């Protein structure tokens, strides 16, 4: 629907610039952004981590001062009169500052006091907010004891306690479970329609772009494009296809990514999504030799396709950029440098988890979880923050003893031989546990020596890593100064130094841009092809598509387990013939929530 545009925009940015000093480097967090947001509309601020979303939000809220340029919010110059702006906006920072020791009600009272809401208006306002957020039954509960999604909704309620004219929401949905995410969007839609609030909404989830009236796509501090989401996808009309062939989907994807005129090829379910440079499908005849039974079916473009297309165009325009080369150049199948793991029957489960439970005090973080992962499989644990993914992971890596249940990794019982099992595991932590002050080469040397690689063998593995992960250009750069995508590659290289049989990846591509994510998954797929078992946690629904099988977790339990296609098929209804992974997740959670309530009803 077109945004209701009533005269002047609610927000105007004019060549805004802001840089930060990081060590000796000056980082241009915002590098000349000119944009505007229409009144009464939801404007999405979309971009990967480090694109400058939070800095821009803080600049608009008057929490940071711009180096140059002009910001006008609700017709007020923010630099000149930040207090006047702050009186009329609502701002919800990434980690909204709720007071954990205070109850829901006391948090609301505090913000009502701070925002000057008169006492006689409060009961009505509170009632409305509680109805909107469904927090009514929990007003006396302390904020610290709410679930992640409920905290986020309370944060939003506190921001809205005095109805703002402009609402700034900094990544309110990242890491939140899909049900709460949907509820947050319902609240936002309600606000713009009934209260005519202007909303600026930042997110790293590209699929949320399509819910916005207008989108500002930012990347590395610059505006990559602006306008209604339909305008982005319209440029790609007729250029998106689903490919299928009588080969494995990974082989199909890998081959298509190298085909001429293919801009993007990603695995989606059992098929491969292809975006071409021109509105014609790739030349099936030319590819048929390698890919028997290759067919292309047109599909409507999505926002991510447009983002990738723009990034590719950017790369082509500036070939000197340090960004990883497009797969077409680097996509020669990775050499089988990771030796296939030594003999074991291929059907054997490399990871076997049986009735695993972990308690912290009276809190059950992981509750009766069982699953098996076969050799060479990519297995995903999908769930919101706090679902128990990381706790399960730590137990699998032998970092945390389970309270109950059995764990076998690479044939070792983790309760008895955690150290032996760890020698066969490669682990890449969420925040890439690299030594920021050491150079790339020093990091490689350190991590290889930790795995007891010395002398010629160490040299050989480092050479392999440098060649495999294109690290040569940055060998002497300190790890801290590397771009996010590069850090990710280095972290993966460090985790693979000792040629592990099993690779654990904790939120590996959280927040990196779509190109870096594709590059990363290309490598992971290649590893899996050589027999390495990969286990991955993620809160990105999209990422689940890359897995052979996955388990969906919520509140410590596994809701369902299976191939992505099977899980999605289970959520198929007449009204929704082609459900997304998120739809499936929501259907699953709702089914789980309904079951006990129905049972308890007389």
């Amino acid at each position, binding site marked *: 629907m077109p945004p209701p545009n009533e005269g002047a925009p609610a927000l105007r940015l004019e060549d805004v610039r802001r840089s930060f000093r990081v060590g000796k480097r000056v980082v241009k967090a915002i590098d000349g952004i000119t944009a505007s947001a229409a009144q009464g509309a939801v404007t999405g601020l979309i971009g990967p981590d480090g694109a400058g979303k939070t800095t821009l939000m*803080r600049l608009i*809220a*008057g*929490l*940071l*001062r711009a180096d140059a340029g002009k910001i006008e919010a609700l017709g007020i110059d923010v630099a000149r009169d*930040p*207090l006047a702006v*702050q*009186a009329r*906006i609502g*701002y*919800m*920072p*990434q*980690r*909204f*500052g*709720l*007071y*954990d*020791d*205070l109850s829901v009600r*006391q948090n609301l*009272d*505090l*913000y*009502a*006091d*701070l*925002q*000057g809401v008169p006492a006689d208006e409060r009961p009505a306002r509170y009632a409305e907010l509680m109805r909107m957020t469904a927090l009514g039954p929990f007003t006396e509960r*302390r904020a610290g004891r709410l679930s992640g999604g409920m905290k986020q909704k309370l*944060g939003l309620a*506190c*921001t809205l306690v005095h109805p703002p004219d402009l609402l700034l929401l900094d990544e309110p949905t990242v890491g939140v479970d899909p049900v709460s995410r949907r509820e947050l969007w319902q609240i936002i839609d309600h606000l713009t329609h009934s209260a005519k609030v202007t909303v600026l909404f930042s997110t790293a989830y590209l699929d949320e772009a399509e819910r916005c009236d207008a989108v500002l796509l930012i990347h590395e501090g610059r505006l990559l494009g602006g306008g209604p989401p339909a305008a982005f996808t319209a440029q790609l009309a007729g250029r998106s296809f689903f490919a299928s062939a009588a080969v494995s989907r990974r082989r199909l994807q890998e081959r298509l990514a190298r085909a001429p005129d293919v801009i993007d090829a990603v695995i989606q379910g059992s098929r491969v999504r292809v975006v071409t440079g021109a509105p014609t499908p790739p030349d099936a005849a030319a590819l048929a030799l390698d890919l028997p039974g290759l067919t292309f079916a047109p599909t409507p473009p999505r926002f991510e396709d447009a983002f990738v297309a723009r990034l590719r165009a950017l790369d082509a325009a500036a070939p000197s950029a340090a960004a990883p080369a497009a797969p077409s150049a680097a996509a020669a199948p990775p050499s089988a440098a990771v030796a296939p793991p030594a003999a074991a029957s291929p059907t054997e489960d490399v990871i076997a988890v049986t009735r695993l439970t972990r308690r912290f005090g009276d809190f059950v973080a992981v509750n009766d979880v069982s699953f098996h992962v076969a050799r060479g499989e990519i297995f995903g644990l999908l769930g919101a923050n706090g679902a128990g993914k990381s706790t399960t992971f730590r137990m699998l890596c032998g970092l945390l003893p389970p309270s109950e249940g059995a764990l076998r990794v690479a044939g070792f019982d983790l309760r008895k031989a955690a150290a032996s099992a760890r020698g066969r595991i490669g682990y890449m932590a969420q925040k890439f546990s690299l030594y920021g002050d050491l150079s790339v080469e020093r990091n490689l040397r350190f991590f290889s020596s930790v795995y007891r690689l010395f002398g010629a063998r160490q040299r050989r593995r480092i050479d392999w890593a440098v060649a495999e992960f294109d690290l040569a250009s940055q060998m002497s750069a300190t790890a801290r100064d590397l771009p996010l995508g590069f850090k990710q590659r280095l972290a993966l290289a460090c985790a693979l130094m000792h040629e592990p049989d099993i690779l654990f990846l904790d939120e590996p591509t959280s927040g990196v841009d779509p190109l870096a994510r594709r590059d990363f998954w290309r490598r992971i797929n290649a590893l899996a092809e050589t027999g390495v078992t990969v286990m991955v946690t993620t809160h990105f629904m999209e990422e689940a598509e890359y897995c052979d099988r996955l388990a969906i977790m919520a509140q410590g339990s596994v809701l369902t387990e299976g191939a992505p296609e099977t899980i999605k098929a289970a959520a198929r209804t007449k009204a929704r013939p082609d459900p997304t992974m998120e739809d499936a997740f929501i259907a699953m959670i709702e089914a789980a929530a309904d079951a006990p309530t129905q049972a308890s009803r007389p």
Partner: protein
Amino acid sequence: MMASLRRLRGLLRKEFLQIWRDPSSLAIAFLLPAVLLFLFGYGVSLDASNVPLALVTQRPSALAASFAGAFEQSSSFRMRRFLTIQEAERAMTDREAQGVVWLPSDFDRRAISGGNAPIGVFVNGVDTNTARIVEGYVQQVWAGWLAQQAAEAGRPAPLPIALQPRVRFNPTVNSRDFIVPGLIAMIMTLSGALLTALVIAREWERGTMEALMVTRVTIREILIAKLIPYFVLGMGGMAATVALGVFRFDVPLRGSLWALTVTSSLFMLAALGMGLLISTVARSQFVAAQIAIIATFLPAFILSGFVFDINSMPWPVQIITYAVAARYFVAILQSTFLAGDVWSVILPNAAALIAIAAIFLGAARALARKRLD
């Protein structure tokens, strides 16, 4: 104005609720001072007691035994007897004795004839402080014994006339009476600075400060809302610590309670102001605690004149001591505890505290910005 008061009331209510529900502030205000006072109150001592001393009697006699008895009766020393000076010196080298008292072979003869029995005293000078204390104590015991001998023999006391030291204000020369007030100043500096610095750093860490910043609240309101609750808490801790000093350590409180309360309030404002100033630069609790210890606790310990005499410091260091709030409070506390309301001491030091509190609070107000950069 009304809106401002309502915001302040909201913030204050939040702060008190948090203090009540999260015991960490209560621990800093009450537990930390109590633990430190017990630890240092018993640990730090400027008195010599149970100092091991070697006694060499070259020719045992009744007189020598009487002299040795004078040492053994003193609680300051623990005597070990040796027959030769060489053995005694070896014991001193091995740090088994802090000093040697040597009665030469003519001790008896000269004591009877001249009434002035010379003795040899060697003190281990490695630890100069202890050496000086031991030297003084040995002299006192010796002079006391000589005087006693003279009195028994009906003779006038030997010349030179032994000094009769009269210590004012601390008649038993119990260094604990002098240390505890100093400790209170030092401990409350740390407690006060930590209270404000940590709670603000905690708000930064948890992201609550960023959310506060974009409301209509002003920086002044945020600072006042931190100052009032932690002033109440800090004064509570102060009262508890003073009570502990008076009732547990038996330190006399000779001055008036109201003078102590007023000056303590001034000092608490200075300490809290220091914490607020720290909070303008430290945005994690770890950094805030580090700075608070280095910037408040250590100077209060070393530069307040409570352990080390300020007059014997080189002048550049002396100048720095003027910036240490504890310096003035130590002077005030030592006066109110041991001497009474000595206005000539209390008033100038209280004036200095007012100035320091004003500087810290003013600097915190000037440096705190309603921005993140």
